[in-house]
């Protein structure tokens, strides 16, 4: 099962757990599985079937440009990241300069 | 910038006539202050009079009576003048301190004086050198010692219809030297946080006479007479220099602004006065 790291500010929904194992073929599946375990998580991570504007997802350390469509393997590490001006793709995308 | 007309008279009388007819006219020499101020809306006019075609304002004559420096002579002509570099090295220094290379291609010492900024680099040195301003106006000519020329930030003794024609510097005395030092955060292209201009005349290891003037530490460039006079007859040593430097510091009444605090500026007055005195003394000792 994939290991999902829960951001500090979402741990109120997981009873303080910072790591949760879940299974799914994509991030969308994974979030559905997480929401089964900890109801409310999906609503905090997604809206209108896409990641919320301030959330990005990293699979195995790589920020995903695909968001919910990103594929996940059973050995994957998944981070949900929050960002100030964070778009769907990543907060790193905002930090552009010349 | 609002519309203005432009005139470039070729004689002093023509310029004075234009000035008389247009009380709001502004004079253009190098333009390095004027055009910036007009663009920023700080000055407005219907007529700009370009004074660079007037012979008297372009003269640069060095003879037994000293130096006659036309008010519109750009800085580069001063520092490229070999005899000035020899006779008035501190003036060469100042001409090469104002702005950068391009600014020095246009900016004049006369303009620096007439702009009457408290931080004007040329003015403390002109005061130290005892320069006299020759002013032409509707009722003829008059002269004013340079330390009396600036009256407030941006204000001068020039009356309606008058213009600065030239500056006259007395011939350098034997065993004399002068220096101007300023402090800026960068090494070029900057406005003085504080500046000190000094001239010294030595006599057998003693100070004969000393003039000290400060920039950017008062509403106008400041003649620190007491500080200079304190050295007359005193031996040339660090203690005396330091005493004069402290007197210069005491004469300053700076403000706190983006270029430095009042306390820092006062401190710099002492530092720069001492350093400038040492440089002037060295020049005096090297002079015949």
């Amino acid at each position, binding site marked *: 099962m994939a290991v999902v790291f829960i951001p500090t500010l979402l741990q109120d929904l997981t009873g303080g757990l910072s790591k949760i194992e879940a299974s799914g073929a994509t991030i969308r599946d994974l979030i559905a599985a997480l929401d089964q375990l900890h109801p409310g998580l999906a609503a905090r991570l997604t809206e209108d079937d896409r990641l919320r504007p301030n959330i990005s997802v990293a699979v195995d350390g790589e920020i995903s440009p695909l968001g919910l469509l990103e594929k996940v393997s059973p050995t994957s590490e998944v981070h949900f990241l929050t960002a100030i001006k964070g778009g769907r793709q990543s907060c790193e995308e905002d930090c552009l300069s010349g | 910038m609002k519309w*203005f007309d432009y005139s470039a008279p070729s004689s002093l009388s023509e310029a004075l006539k234009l000035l008389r007819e247009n009380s709001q006219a502004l004079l253009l020499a190098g333009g390095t202050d004027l055009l910036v101020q007009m663009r920023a809306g700080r000055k407005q006019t219907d007529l700009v009079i370009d004074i660079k075609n007037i012979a008297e304002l372009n003269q640069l004559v060095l003879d037994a009576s000293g130096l006659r420096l036309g008010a519109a002579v750009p800085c580069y002509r001063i520092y490229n003048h070999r005899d000035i570099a020899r006779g008035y090295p501190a003036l060469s220094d100042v001409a090469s301190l104002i702005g950068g290379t391009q600014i020095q291609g*246009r900016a004049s010492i006369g303009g620096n004086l007439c702009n009457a900024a408290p931080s004007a680099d040329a003015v403390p040195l002109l005061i130290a050198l005892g320069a006299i301003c020759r002013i032409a106006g509707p009722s003829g000519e008059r002269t004013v010692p340079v330390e009396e020329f600036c009256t407030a930030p941006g204000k001068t003794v020039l009356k309606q219809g008058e213009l600065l024609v030239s500056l006259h510097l007395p011939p350098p005395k034997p065993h004399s030297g002068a220096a101007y030092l300023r402090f800026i955060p960068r090494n070029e292209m900057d406005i003085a946080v504080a500046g000190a201009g000094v001239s010294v005349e030595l006599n057998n290891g003693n100070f004969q006479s000393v003039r000290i003037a400060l920039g950017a530490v008062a509403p106008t460039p400041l003649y620190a007479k007491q500080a200079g006079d304190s050295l007359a007859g005193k031996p040339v040593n660090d203690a005396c220099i330091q005493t004069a430097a402290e007197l210069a510091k005491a004469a300053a009444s700076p403000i706190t602004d983006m270029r430095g605090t009042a306390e820092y500026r006062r401190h710099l007055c002492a530092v720069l006065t001492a350093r400038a005195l040492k440089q002037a003394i060295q020049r005096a000792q090297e002079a015949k």
Partner: protein
Amino acid sequence: MHKKVHVQATINNEPVEFLCEPRQSLLECLRDILGLTGTKEGCNDGNCGACTVVLDDRIVTSCLVLGVEAQGRKITTIEGIAEGHKLHPLQQAFLENAALQCGVCTPGFLVAAKALLDAEPNPSEERIRLWLANNLCRCTGYDKIVRAVKQCATEVNA
């Protein structure tokens, strides 16, 4: 009614006539009236040097010169530096030394540096830095610019 002024000058060795408003700077006249857009505006108050041109025998910031002041004067801009298709050695040295990044300050630097080398064939690094202190570059940190000027001076003297 305000009337524009007729100005005759020599620009890049060609006689030129134009009409301008007295309030228009030489920089505006070069760029907007004469189409010589190689001279750049960076600050419009003489502090960045991007608009440097040669006016008679001196470099100046053309933003601080009125167009009407050009009457009867000789002006050289960046467009007048190369000789036909042959780049000036300084232009070549800038390319070989990667002495430009965004390139917007480059015309000003080239005009200023050429004036230096015309007057002083072999300036020291300190002299180059002092002469060019009225030209700001934000991309290069000046290192490669100073090297290019130095290299050009050395080659021309060799």
